[in-house]
């Protein structure tokens, strides 16, 4: 069992706090992706699990045992670094086998295991090469082999794919996922790339400014973003957000535009809310109640994104590539109430659909 329990962990450098009380429970064998913009503290959190950064407050426990005071080597974690961090003067075999050498494993046994690992990451023919003679993807595989050979309880990945080109990234992503299915070790993967997060994760942890915004499965995060930040950060193209007031139930006003809203949003004069709807959920039709002038069109192959402005904000419509759209053209669309998300503009919290009994159903007054 190698579950990771992170409770109330903080990190500060001098007086600057970068992580403010993070709680996270990672189950044994789970693949968790920590996702967030750069500088949100996601790498710091990973490095604290690894033991490369001191923990300023709170505890981290691996397999039920607090590891705050333990050296990295005693924690049973292996790490794959962003820039691979291979030893440049060692051959591939030596790089992979170094941990075993340090641990004092006899040479014959070491070579046997190195070959075994090299085989599973497809590097058998390159064992004698130096890292400088390998391509980016091969180096990445060496780094993974180096992590695998220790048969760790926990795999830590620190943005391991961000130095690869787009095609290789997709391929390595698959390989990492396969590796996880085969080994079943608890894995923590840090990235700023949401596609990576969506495809790899059992659960995603979205972080922002040193705090966890939301923890959930990829579909939960996509379908039900808990905060305004998550709504704007997850998925590409981003969610369209509109600042509205909801004077009466069922009606949102953005300037002189009136949008019908789901019934759960209670109305109150002057009550403000943020309404969000994903570009792919907008319904484009000739009978649409709203209109948007296309400023420019991004063609992505299967779909095209039409950028324009609506109710004074940047707005994106997604339509099939078959539909002819040109810049300057006016498009009509509808906003289906079912696809609508609503957030409290003051706290950024989601206004939930199902209200606890006995509580008034209101957005915060402005």
């Amino acid at each position, binding site marked *: 069992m190698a579950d990771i329990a992170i409770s109330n962990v903080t990190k500060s450098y001098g007086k600057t706090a970068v992580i403010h009380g993070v709680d996270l429970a990672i189950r044994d064998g789970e693949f968790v992706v920590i996702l967030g913009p750069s500088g949100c503290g996601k790498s710091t959190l990973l490095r604290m699990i690894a033991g490369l950064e001191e923990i300023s407050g709170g505890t981290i426990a691996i397999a039920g045992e607090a590891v705050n005071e333990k*050296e*990295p*080597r005693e924690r049973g974690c292996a790490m794959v*670094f962003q820039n691979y*961090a291979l*030893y*440049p003067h060692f051959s591939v075999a030596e790089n992979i086998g*170094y941990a075993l050498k*340090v641990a004092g494993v006899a040479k014959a046994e070491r070579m046997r295991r190195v070959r075994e690992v090299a085989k599973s990451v497809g590097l058998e023919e390159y064992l004698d090469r130096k890292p400088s003679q390998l391509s980016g993807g091969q180096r990445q595989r060496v780094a993974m082999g*180096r992590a695998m050979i220790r048969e760790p309880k926990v795999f830590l990945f620190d943005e391991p794919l961000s130095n690869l080109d787009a095609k290789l990234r997709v391929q390595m992503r698959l390989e990492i996922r396969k590796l996880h299915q085969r080994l079943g070790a608890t894995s923590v993967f840090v990235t700023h790339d949401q596609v990576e997060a969506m495809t790899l994760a059992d659960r995603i942890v979205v972080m922002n400014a040193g705090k966890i915004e939301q923890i959930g499965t990829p579909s939960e995060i996509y379908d039900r973003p808990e905060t305004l930040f998550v709504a704007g950060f997850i998925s590409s193209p981003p969610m369209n957000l509109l600042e509205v007031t909801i004077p009466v139930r069922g009606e949102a006003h953005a300037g002189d535009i009136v949008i019908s809203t789901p019934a759960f949003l209670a109305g109150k004069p002057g009550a403000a809310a943020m309404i969000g709807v994903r570009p792919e959920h907008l319904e484009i039709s000739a009978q649409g109640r709203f209109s948007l002038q296309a400023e420019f069109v991004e063609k992505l192959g299967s779909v095209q994104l039409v950028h324009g402005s609506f109710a004074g904000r940047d707005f994106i419509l997604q339509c099939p590539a078959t539909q002819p759209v040109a810049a300057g053209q006016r498009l009509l669309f509808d906003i289906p109430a079912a696809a609508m998300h609503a957030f409290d503009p003051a706290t950024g919290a989601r206004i939930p659909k199902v209200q606890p009994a006995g509580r008034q159903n209101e957005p915060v007054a402005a």
Partner: protein
Amino acid sequence: MIERTPVLNFFTHLAMLVGIILAALPIYIVFVASSHDFQTVNIVPMPLTPGYSLVENYTKVWTKSDFGTKFVNSFIVATGVTIGKIAIAAITAFSIVFFNYRLKMLFFWLIFVTLMLPLEVRIVPTYAVAANALSPIQGVLNGLFNAPALLLGLIGIEGLPQVALKLPEWNLLNSYTGLILPLVATATGTFLFRQFFLTVPAELVEASKMDGAGPIRFFWDVLLPLSKTNMAALATIMFVYAWNQYLWPLLVTTRPEMTTATMQLQKLVPGPLFGQPPVWNEAMAGTLIVMLPPLLVVIFMQGYFVRGLISADK
């Protein structure tokens, strides 16, 4: 920059040629002088073409000056100094770059300041220590033991017994230790290693931590192999430096079997001081012999030397 300018080419080549002549001509004259017999070399002006006594002069000066022993001494000293300097420089730089402790920068600057205090400046105290290596410890201990008596003396209480501790004498004069040790401390080397260590990516340190390697393992398995070119550069500079040492060996050795090749050169020119005409042909032959080892070291190491100084290879 690739340019096609015949005029500029001509002048750059000219400048190069002048440079080569300036550097090589004196050596050529030394070579010519070392190849003539005693009479010819003293003709004014001296002939500028090689003579016929080359082998004779070299064998004569080699046996007469006992260069066999002197070369062995010089090699032991130069190699000892080089290895010592590299070892100390690598270890100090390792400590300064990869560990965090209080007053770290102070220590670094203390080392750095010694760049301004070459051996020549501190030669008298260094000699005193070499004459009795334990004398500083003895002095400190005696000072500590006698401090109470001294303080009480200040406030008028006298008559406390004075301690005069006498440690056994440890004489470094006329020994390899004495020739090597005072030359081993090196700020240049520490600085060179520090600059290189600073370029080693932090991930490499972290990766080795994750692999379970402790600091010494990391130093030995990762850092030292990576600093190979650096060490070669330092070794080149330091070997030449140690080989060319003159003042310190002159002070610290009195027995002829402990003297070094460089010291012996001065004895090759007894000259007018001793009422004889100088034996220039033999002196020049000796000079060339003594020049040879550092020259060979530079030639063999120059590839590494340049790469080490600019740290291009990683």
